[in-house]
């Protein structure tokens, strides 16, 4: 049993720890559902570059620690889910120099920019994540660009929804990142095949 003085020291240490909690780490893959949309009867390739697969966003905020989001780990799943719903079939292409037969175009996504906003920076209760993607559609035979598109995903999470101050920042930042993935996925799901160049390319694959 702890005596009263030791108990007070323990309690003081606990409060000290709460006060010192800083930074956050989002290091587990994030899953999204497969979009519930009608697909286009085309098979496409999907190439996830090493650069995209290893993307880590890190920001050090003076006095508040380092905030790290391992974004890359989730990207193959994210784009397989989205384009697997947009098109009838998606084949993951490991190398752009070795493209399987039956694929007329390959989708190559990259992250252009990632930004975060934290409650102590914005002055309100919201953790926010913005991710800007550049999505290229390449002709499988020539490697030339058919279409280039920029898509932004935004997600937010209110810190008041997370009780435990010890892991609040990590959980909120994870949910905000998930929100940004879902937002980008929603936008791609509804808008990708409506892009004129993509629409024309789909038409060319359907012609006899």
């Amino acid at each position, binding site marked *: 049993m702890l*005596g009263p003085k030791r108990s*007070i020291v323990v309690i003081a240490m606990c409060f000290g720890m709460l006060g010192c909690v800083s930074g956050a780490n989002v290091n587990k893959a994030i899953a999204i559902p497969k979009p519930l949309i009608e697909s286009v009867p085309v098979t496409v390739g999907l190439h996830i570059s090493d650069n995209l697969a290893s993307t880590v966003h890190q920001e050090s905020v003076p006095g508040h620690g380092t905030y790290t989001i391992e974004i890359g780990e989730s990207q193959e799943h994210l784009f397989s889910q989205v384009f697997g719903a947009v098109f009838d079939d998606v084949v993951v292409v490991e190398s752009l120099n070795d493209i399987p037969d039956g694929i007329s175009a390959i989708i190559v996504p990259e992250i252009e920019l990632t930004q975060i906003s934290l409650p102590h920076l914005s002055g309100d209760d919201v953790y926010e994540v913005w991710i800007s993607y550049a999505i290229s559609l390449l002709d499988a035979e020539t490697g030339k660009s058919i279409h280039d598109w920029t898509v932004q995903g935004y997600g937010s999470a209110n810190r008041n*929804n997370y009780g435990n101050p010890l892991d609040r920042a990590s959980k909120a930042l994870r949910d905000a990142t998930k929100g940004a993935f879902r937002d980008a996925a*929603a936008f791609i799901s509804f808008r990708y095949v409506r892009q004129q160049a993509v629409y024309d390319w789909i038409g060319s694959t359907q012609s006899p």
Partner: protein
Amino acid sequence: MKHLKKGSTVLLIACIPLIPLLFSGCVSNTLQEIREADTGILPHETIAVLGRKDSRKDQTESAFIDCLVDKTSSGSKSVNVISNEEFVDQFFPWFEPRTAPLEVGDMTNILKQDKITQKVDEINLRYIVWVDGTTQRTDQGGTVQCAVATGGVPACFGFLTWEAGSNYEATIWDIHSGVSAGKVSSEAKGMSFVPAIIVPLPFIARTQAAACVAMSKQLKEFIDPEPSK
């Protein structure tokens, strides 16, 4: 005897966080209802309770949505409820912050999609309940200061008070008839205070919990106005 006193002090400190469970401040509740169409629900039908997320800052707290789901799906006149997370996952990406229908007419357009109609039939969805609102501190005053007194025992002195307001509104869409059936709203106000003479004694007004309980009862009555059997 000395050990007993020390033990009592430690016990007292350890029990401080439990005190709010014993006392609570006063909460007053105001309920309102606007009915636009007749309602009713069959035992196999489901309602979805969703939080509006189109506003960046004033999003309804997930604790309130979870509470409303829990209270509406239990107790007298309970109905089958699908939670926010489960619903938006099953209907992804139609109910994301940027894509969710804002008017019941938009919902009718979404229902023209075969895959959506199949999913609606699969879960027997009858109503969508959109919840808007937050709990906010409206006024506060006073201070409580704590220090370690002679002998190493912490002591607090002062008086802290604040007023909180919980304002929530639920809009009910009838999926079968494609109309807005109406709205129910719950407003709870309460004053919390913490007098401290050595030990702080928090009297917390649980306005959000009160608003949730009141709204869940009102929602069940609104959806199924028939007297319970």
